[in-house]
């Protein structure tokens, strides 16, 4: 059996303050597995560590952040152990990432053709002319009309939706094995969002890539993903196939998230929210990080941190309620 596309084993990334006194466990002991053609949705509140996890996978962390432990196996190769030079050959080539702000992701001073063709020139040694030719094909693949004239244009001449597609074209330019999209639709309006999601799904099928969606939109997860990981305070509190998790969430946090989605079929005066605030990441409480907000909390939650349980095949949960299902 071949190695999975991506396997994270007990991965931890911490931010350390300049004086070394404050440690933020932005990503803590995360284990996840996905195969080619899987679409993994990573959901969580702002500050739960989703984006840091994505940056960790590409090792483009800000200077204060360190990968402090664990392994990241891409097709069996550990990315944590790679040198910076080897890692550079992974970025844009085997793992690509789409950033969340299309308006700011493109360099204003270079033409679209130069920017889309750049990874090809870097990784495949393409000439400027052949990179441009390929760029036209890529723009066509992301359904930009009149790509021949668009390549000569500059980012400020494009709408937000078009720029986001161009960022997508840059992502797939070297036919990566894994594409990470960090909230790729937050700045797009709803109709453009739907188009963009369809585009990404088609690209995934055409190129056979693995896709990771970082989002706080469970609707997108339901539409796009077959796997789901829910993050809370730097940890994956629940993961598994989307159908299993949506039907039988094992963690009260997942259940609360699902419950907070407004439904057309219900008459509710108020939207339901999760009470309380996410904990201070530099001073996590003893026990389970969600205990203070959990509707089903009991004594043990405040004393001991729950380990990973397996409520059903392929599903994991860090919750004492799932104990005994291991």
């Amino acid at each position, binding site marked *: 059996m071949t190695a999975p596309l991506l396997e994270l084993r007990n991965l931890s990334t911490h931010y350390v303050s300049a004086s070394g006194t404050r440690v933020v466990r932005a990503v803590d002991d995360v284990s996840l597995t996905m195969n080619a053609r899987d679409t993994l949705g990573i959901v969580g509140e702002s500050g739960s560590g989703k984006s840091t996890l994505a940056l960790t996978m590409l090792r483009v962390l800000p200077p204060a952040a360190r990968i402090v432990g664990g392994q990241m196996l891409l097709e069996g190769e550990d990315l944590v152990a790679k040198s910076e030079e080897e890692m550079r050959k992974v970025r844009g080539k085997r793992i690509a990432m789409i950033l969340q702000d299309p308006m700011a992701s493109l360099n204003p*001073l270079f033409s679209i053709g130069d920017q889309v063709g750049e990874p090809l020139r870097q990784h495949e040694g393409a000439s400027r002319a052949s990179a441009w030719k390929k760029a036209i094909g890529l723009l066509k693949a992301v359904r930009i009309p009149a790509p021949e004239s668009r390549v000569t244009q500059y980012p400020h001449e494009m709408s937000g939706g078009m720029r986001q597609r161009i960022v997508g074209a840059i992502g797939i330019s070297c036919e990566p094995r894994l594409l990470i999209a960090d909230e790729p639709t937050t700045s797009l309006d709803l109709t453009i969002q739907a188009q963009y999601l369809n585009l990404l799904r088609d690209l995934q099928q055409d190129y056979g890539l693995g896709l990771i969606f970082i989002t706080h939109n469970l609707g997108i997860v339901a539409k796009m993903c077959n796997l789901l990981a829910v993050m809370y305070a730097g940890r994956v509190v629940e993961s598994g196939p989307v159908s299993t998790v949506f039907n039988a969430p094992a963690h009260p946090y997942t259940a609360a998230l699902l419950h907070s989605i407004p439904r057309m079929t219900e008459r509710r005066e108020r939207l339901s929210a999760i009470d309380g605030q996410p904990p201070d990441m530099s001073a996590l409480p003893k026990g389970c990080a969600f205990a203070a907000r959990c509707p089903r909390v009991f004594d043990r939650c405040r004393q001991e941190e729950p380990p990973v349980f397996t409520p059903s095949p392929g599903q994991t949960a860090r919750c004492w309620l799932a104990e005994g299902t291991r």
Partner: protein
Amino acid sequence: MRQFIARRFGYSLLSLLLLSLTIFLFIRLTGDPTSLLTEPGATEADIAAVQQKFGLDKPIWVQYAYFMGSLIKGDLGESFYYQTPVLELYLSRLPNSLMLATVAMAFSLVLGIPTGILAAVKVGRFWDSAGKLFALLGLSLPSFLVGLLMILFFSVYLEWLPSSGSGTFLHLLMPAFALGWYFAAAHMRLTRSSMLEVMGSEYIKLARLKGLTETRVIVKHAFKNALIPVVTLAGINMINMINVAVVVETVFAWPGIGRLLYEGINFRDFPVVQGVVIIGGSMIVVVNLLVDVLYALIDPRIRLEK
């Protein structure tokens, strides 16, 4: 693009008109030049003759109209003191000032831009602190002090360089350094802050995500963007260097425009002061115009602005 240039040109003319009025009035606040142009104890009649000769007996608005009238024809008038056309005096001093400014600018860019980039790339570390110290010294030590210290060290103690005058390349080194010193610090600080801003942008993140080498990220993606404000500042500073080198030129007895202005003020030589200021002002206005056009060439966003 054509409309863009035309509009900028209109603003430029307006600024020059205001400048001419301002300098014309202000230089007349320094006092009456006839007292310096006549012998002590000269008769009323002699003084009146001198006033009449230079047109100083007419009402001030007539003098201004006359000044503007010849200015439009390209005539800056004649120096009270040297009795030669101001333009001729100016042009005879210009090569010296240009030479000084060019070397000072080259020095300030060669020192300022790389140190600015280094400080930004190594932000918060040794090179950044060294850069901050350099910027502090550059911006706070006045050029006359730097000039005098250099004369003391290189001319008096080491006897390597001539302390004043002009003629050889060696004469140029100290004044250019003293003049470029402040600007090097200014260019360094702007390069640093501009680089820092650009390095934090999303497109730099994306450039890294493309797997580009760090050198390529910095040189190609960051530097070109960071250069835009530095180009503006350098263009304006070039003109400043020609026209504001008064102190440095006086310290090193460098026969440039700065010293011409200094002499003009001392002798209440109105046409010289007016001429030097108007030409200097025109240069600043023209360079601003050129910088705007250059901007438009570097940055496509400005190019298409209506």
